């Protein structure tokens, strides 16, 4: 499983209220949710994000509300992977459950700047910053987690019989 994209970087404690403000939670339409993703901290996010881009953040990413709409909005916006120093626990669980790849890696957060081109090889747990030439190691993604992400979430994985 390999992801390629440019880095879009945020700070610590990015909460689910700024990822998708509650005023938009009167819908479960993924496209509509994605159209408001990050708008309360970065109005330009929806314009600059391209399919495959990689989100980088600090500590406690996804804190606050349990809304699954938050990882759904990030994934639907085109983000392929979120790398942070740490994640809030409900967000972590929700991301895997809906098939959004996320991982914790301090060195990568330190060594990747906004706009850098990043390649993530999750089979081998290696992250490359193609802009600076630096490389970082992380835990490889276990096969069953990769399967959940490929299938688009836990429920789809169960449906396909990949998880029994």
């Amino acid at each position, binding site marked *: 499983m390999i992801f390629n994209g440019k880095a879009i970087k945020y700070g610590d404690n990015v*909460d689910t*209220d700024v990822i998708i403000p509650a005023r938009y*939670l009167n819908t*479960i339409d993924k496209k509509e949710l994605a159209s408001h993703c990050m708008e309360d901290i970065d109005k330009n996010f929806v314009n600059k994000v391209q399919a495959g881009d990689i989100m980088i953040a600090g500590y406690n990413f996804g*804190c606050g*509300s349990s809304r699954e709409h938050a990882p759904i909005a990030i994934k639907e916006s085109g983000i392929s992977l979120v790398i942070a120093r740490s994640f*809030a*626990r409900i967000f972590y*669980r*929700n991301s895997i459950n809906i098939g959004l790849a996320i991982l914790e890696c301090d060195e990568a957060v330190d060594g990747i700047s906004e706009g850098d081109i990043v390649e993530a090889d999750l089979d081998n747990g290696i992250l490359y910053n193609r802009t600076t030439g630096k490389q970082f190691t992380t835990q490889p993604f276990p096969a069953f987690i990769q399967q959940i992400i490929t299938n688009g979430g836990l429920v789809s994985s169960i449906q396909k019989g990949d998880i029994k």
Partner: protein
Amino acid sequence: MSMTMTQKILAAHAGLEKVEAGQLILVNLDRVLGNDITSPVAIKEFEKIGATSVYDKDKVTMVMDHFAPNKDIKAATQCKMCRDFCDKHEVTHFYDVGQMGIEHALLPEKGLVVPGDVVIGADSHTCTYGALGAFSTGVGSTDMACGMATGKAWFKVPSAIKFVLKGKLNQYVSGKDVILHIIGKIGVDGALYKSMEFTGEGVQSLTIFDRLTISNMAIEAGAKNGIFEVDEQTIAYVKERSDRDFPIYKADEDAVYDETYEIDLSEIKSTVAFPHLPENTKTFDEIGDIKIDQVVIGSCTNGQYKDLAEAAEIFKGKKVAKRVRAIIIPATQDVYMKAMENGLLKIFIEAGCIVSTPTCGPCLGGYMGILAAGERAVATTNRNFVGRMGHVDSEVYLASPTVAAASAIAGKIADPAEVMK
């Protein structure tokens, strides 16, 4: 190996004699909860799984509280989706307008949670029921869907931080000040992935409602759950509301904790969390003149009768300051009724407050009190993130009901002890 209180409850629900921190376990659920925002996503996933019935129609619970009474057509459509699902699956505990209240005030009040239960809810403040000695935690909609279908959920057994409480709270200080003080001390990720366990002789001096407020905001420190030792008060509160028998779990004396904090309740002062994180706490010796535009007293954190009564004591015979809007939201129909019977509503209305039907409404910037750019609110709610109650350039200051009421009267963030002088 000794166990914490949380670990004992999880072990019992996993059919295991012992569990230890870090272990992955599958547990049986005593209740699966959702609201009008998270349930629609869960219902779609539930149908995708192909489940034909819910695992137990008495244990699946849905409460229409976030955008109900329906704030717009989209919200109405989401509530209808929940209503149709609960009708189809004959869900016993479906709470709609007329019976509903804010979910985390409603479930304890209806006796739907007893000590030793394991509860998951697709709402982050599900951790509230730790006040009753239950393991309860917030999850997302996919976990809710799988929980509704199977009655099970997997967990990584958490390690814990122990809070030993002693002493008694001073006048005008309540559970809200205790939890804001703790979050200020350990930070918004200070208990990430962990249990917060509250014990010590000081627990007995806290009412059940103070404890509900404290457990409610455990998530604001990143915790998986926040749990209180069961005492006579817990037993009396639960027995009044439920016929179910329940075991009482206690942490082993030699249970291992990552950290232990001693908190002297008599030293806790009225505390306010400044924008935009609950950890940005200050006491009145550090708070200058901060003018405000709105006060909200309510939410799953502080919408109980006790909270309203404490606010009413401050409002009695006084007036809300000019250009301040004070919004009071009883958390449940029962709280509303009791507030009416005991004359609280009259005190609020005479002071110039408005009183709303139960709803989460403004807490999450839904409706019923949204802020414009540049406006400030003092709220008894639980989060003060950017844009939480409205415009991204508005500000929310988190405080207790007495501080919120005093602030409404003073027109600025105010110490209730000063206003009552």
